[in-house]
């Protein structure tokens, strides 16, 4: 029997968390009125969040083992189980997902007025898919959830997106599908090699021959690298982010692209440690390229949303660099930075959505001087922008610092190159800020001609939890890091145990 701690709450907390949105989506079928649909979806996402809350209180931070686990036989003839559980790597993402989903419903309150029912069904299905990926401990289940995420996102972009939505949606779909198919092949190989089991924990405990490890690593890498996205398979991201409706961008940037990094942590590193070590140089190089390349591309962007999208490439470069530094600081920094990026970029996309509702333009040149007319908005935007460039006191700093520290430990040149990212980040963010908010007000928005109003109460409510988290993590990160410590430590120990990489410890 592998090391798991069965769920000891008086209800199956993970199952409820994952399937409540599904139930909600089904019930939405019977509703007609758009207002009712919105309120009902809000209620469901809120309830999902509330239901998951006891996890935080009852989570045992001292162990790396899977907790709140549930296991039921499902398709016995194929050895497939319904098997879920979470550890320090996944626990925080449950909350990132449930919170961002609430915000997505709220931010679409006014922005989405066509096919309202379908939109909310897509959002709720999406939420269930993402939560499912984070809790699955059986490959079959995992793959179902993994692919489940794809369809609603495809629809969100393709139906409620911008002018280029169809191109973007198909590009997104094909890119990710190609990756996923290779992963499926990898899963099938694992299934037969592992003696016809799909239990992720059992398969993680096995030792695979080096060559097999390498092939499997590459198969999984195809799926995860596209999701992250790593250079050079990143080009779906700017299109998808830019064309998606606000809620879609927030989910994409906030949670979906974390799946790749999560996959590395959950599968690639523990299952294929030797292969990870073998491919470590290319992984470093790709991460560093992503950091610098992603930032440089931002210098020349003319589209508000595209700029933020490309900045994700740079930030996710930090994440993968930290993870593959394979030391405690790098991995913990990487996980925290995934959370941070979800908060920061989520907030940035929300804010772009909010201003887009007033101006109906994404071109940076159409803005200018907005600090004069939307002071609160500008104030909150600068907080998020500063978190994005890793200013101490914000969450971005803690993550980036730990990552650079870990990278430096793994190789001085890595730390050095990664640190250039902090200069480049400041350059493009402050350029953007100046062009949008400073200088003279763009004449289009002078009195009355084109009404632009400051944050409403609803919008302030949306942004508040994100702003609070930015400072909370920045000032007292231990609240969050404490969930991660044991699992990260375990991951590193296992890695060095399996490969004798004492150097990296």
């Amino acid at each position, binding site marked *: 029997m592998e090391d798991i701690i069965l769920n000891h709450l008086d209800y199956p907390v993970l199952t409820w968390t994952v399937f409540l949105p599904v139930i909600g989506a089904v019930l939405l079928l019977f509703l007609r009125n758009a207002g009712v649909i919105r309120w009902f979806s809000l209620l469901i996402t809120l309830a999902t969040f509330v239901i998951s809350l006891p996890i935080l209180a009852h989570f045992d931070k001292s162990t790396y083992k899977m907790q709140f686990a549930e296991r039921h036989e499902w398709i016995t003839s194929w050895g497939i189980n319904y098997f879920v559980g979470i550890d320090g790597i996944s626990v925080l993402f449950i909350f990132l997902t449930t919170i961002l989903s609430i915000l997505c419903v709220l931010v679409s309150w006014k922005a989405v007025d066509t096919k309202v029912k379908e939109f909310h069904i897509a959002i709720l299905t999406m939420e269930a898919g993402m939560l499912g990926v984070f809790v699955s401990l059986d490959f079959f289940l995992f793959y179902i959830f993994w692919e489940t995420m794809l369809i609603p996102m495809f629809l969100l972009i393709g139906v409620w997106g911008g002018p280029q939505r169809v191109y973007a949606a198909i*590009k997104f779909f*094909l*890119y990710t599908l190609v990756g996923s198919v290779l992963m499926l092949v990898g899963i099938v190989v694992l299934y037969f090699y592992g003696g016809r089991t799909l239990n992720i924990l059992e398969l993680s405990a096995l030792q695979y021959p080096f060559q097999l490890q390498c092939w499997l690593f590459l198969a999984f890498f195809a799926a995860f690298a596209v999701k992250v996205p790593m250079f*050079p398979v990143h*080009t*779906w991201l700017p299109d998808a982010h830019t064309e998606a409706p606000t809620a879609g961008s927030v989910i994409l940037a906030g949670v979906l692209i974390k799946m790749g990094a999560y996959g590395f942590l959950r599968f690639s590193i523990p299952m294929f440690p030797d292969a990870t070590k073998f491919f470590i140089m290319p992984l470093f190089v790709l991460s560093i390229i992503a950091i610098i*390349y992603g930032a*440089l*591309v931002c*210098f*020349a*962007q003319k589209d508000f949303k595209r700029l933020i999208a490309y900045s994700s490439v740079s930030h996710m470069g930090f994440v993968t660099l930290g993870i593959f530094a394979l*030391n*405690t*600081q790098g991995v*913990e*920094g990487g996980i925290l930075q995934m959370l941070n990026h979800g908060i920061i970029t989520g907030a940035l996309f929300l804010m772009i959505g909010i201003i887009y509702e007033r101006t109906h333009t994404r071109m940076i040149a159409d803005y200018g*001087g907005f*600090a*004069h007319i939307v*002071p609160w908005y500008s*104030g909150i935007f600068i907080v998020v922008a*500063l978190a994005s460039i890793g*200013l*101490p*006191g914000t969450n971005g*700093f*803690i993550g980036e*610092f*730990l990552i*650079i*520290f870990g990278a*430096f*430990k793994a190789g*001085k*040149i890595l*730390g*050095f190159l990664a*640190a*250039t990212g*902090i*200069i480049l980040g*400041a*350059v493009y963010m*402050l*350029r953007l800020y*100046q062009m949008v*908010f*400073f*200088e*003279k*007000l763009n004449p289009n928005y002078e009195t009355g001609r084109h009404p632009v109003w400051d944050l409403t109460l609803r919008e302030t409510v949306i942004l508040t939890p994100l702003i609070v988290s930015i400072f909370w993590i920045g*000032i*007292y*990160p*231990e609240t969050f*890091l404490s969930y991660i*410590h044991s699992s990260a*430590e375990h991951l590193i120990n296992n890695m060095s145990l399996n490969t004798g990489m004492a150097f990296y410890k």
Partner: protein
Amino acid sequence: MLEYTLIPLLPLIAFVINIIFGRNYIKDKAHWVSVPAVIGSFVLAVAAFMDVQSGKVININLYRWIVSGDFNVPIGFLIDPLTAVMLIVVTSISSLIFIYSIGYMHGDKGYYRFFAYLSLFVFSMLTLVMSNNFLLLYFGWEAVGLCSYFLIGFWFDKKSAANAGKKAFIVNRFGDFGFGLGVILVFLTFGSLEYTKVFSDAGSVIGKTISIFGYEVNTITLICLLLFCGAVGKSAQLPLHVWLPDAMEGPTPVSALIHAATMVTAGVFMVARCNPLFSLSHTAMTTVAVVGGVTSIFAASIGLVQNDIKRIIAYSTVSQLGYMFLALGVGAYSAGIFHLYTHAYFKALLFLGSGSVIHALHDEMNIQKMGGLKKYMPVTYWTFIAASLSIAGIPGLAGFFSKDEILWRAYAGGDAGRWLWLLATIAAFMTAFYSFRLIFLTFHGKFRGTHEQEHHLHESPSVMTIPLIFLAIGAVASGWVGIPPLLMEHGDRIGEFLAPVLGPPKGEGSHAEEWMVMGLSVFVGLAGIFTAYIMYLKKTELPYKIGEKFQAVYKLLYNKYWIDELYDKTIVRPVLSVSEKIILGFFDAKIIEGVVNGVPNLIGAFSQRLRKIQTGMLSHYAVAMALGVLVIIGAVIFLK
């Protein structure tokens, strides 16, 4: 002891209140929040100073900030003699600047915002000086950079102001890049970021090396040089000085704050704080001294020919900071801090005085268009004179004692020191010259502005002049705590006070040499003033003639050695055009996207061709079928 955490927290609270409620509720009463807060900090700072004077050193950890594996760093405060001096400098000068701002910023629509940012600035600087570890220092370090961004770009509807704020932040980030790596290296070397642990273990890593690209580099030297990168950025030394003169775009009280109390001194403080490390590396020390010495004369020479009143003073700051680094580099840490402390008073005074002038002239900053203001603005004039005499090093005033101490330590600091002393002495001449050039052109002679301006000339309100008077007292008297032993037994009270942290000054020399250095520094100061007097009051055609004769030199200085243009051509533009044209325009759009869109297009094109076979004509299919049958039959027959 915990009450001392209020020293930084009071301004922080003021910031939070003003930024949240300022816009709608507090508005033009924002100073009622910020001014009491900073004065409260000042009172507590005095209390802390007295505690330290009685022999206490306060070192408290509040909580563990970041913990990850073997890495951990606390939020904690250290108040020792060095911090105590800094606390007094920062809070006293800030208090006066805050009060002055009530008058200066009166009626500005961003009044509440201004006081909010000022408070945040003071909070950041106080955190920086009170930190007991490198990472919290880094926090304060970045936070002052942020505040400078907000305040330099305070009038953000001006493009130049928004640019200058951005420039300050980004140039500083270049320095912070090195500084951050230095901090990481400190942890990897010492296993801690807390000063007490790092400094007490410093001796144990002597001689250790670290390999970089195959080169063995002395660990301590590398740490010091990386940390010094940060100082070069923050304290505006060559080659990262470019942001400071542009920072003049901010409201004048901000310039005073940046130059005297809250920002540029951070680099000097940090190097002094890390003296146990720097002292172990000859290379690092020499670098610090040379950068300081060269910057002092470089910036002073630019100051000679500028016409913008605030820019002249800005270059003077860069130059004076050069002096401070020179002192640090020759091991005279306390002399560096002493100059930081006296400089804070006369520099704040110069800026606030120039603010008063600018205020009276409705935002005129060109000294060529001023003149004769003495009779309209007596308080501004006389306090300005006090500050200028002080910076020129006239005996008895604050600047004299601190500058003389630096020159003497440089002279006594061996061969390299001798050369740097020579540079610094020439810079002292220039300092006196440009300071009095400014005074003569601004306050003496005839008014050269418009009639409209002349009509409105007035002395500033007392909320502005009273801080000037207080600062003038400091500019005159603050040096009396550091009288060299040559003139007075046990006169160097500040040196003795700082000795437990900064150690006794190094360097040897005879009394005769010390008198010579002192005499020479007084002589060049007087000579500078006299030259300015001749050129700008007696023979006013002389500057023009000299400018004509040495046009090349004049242009070089006037255009600030074209450093900004150089950076623009070699760094800014290439990076921007590479990212736009090559990376985004070619690589991302053509190569990667070419493959991404190319493969489906290829498949699509292939399918298009393939589709043509499917004509839908039965006869075509029948022919194809017949042909197929023939081929199969043929194959079967022939292959048999």
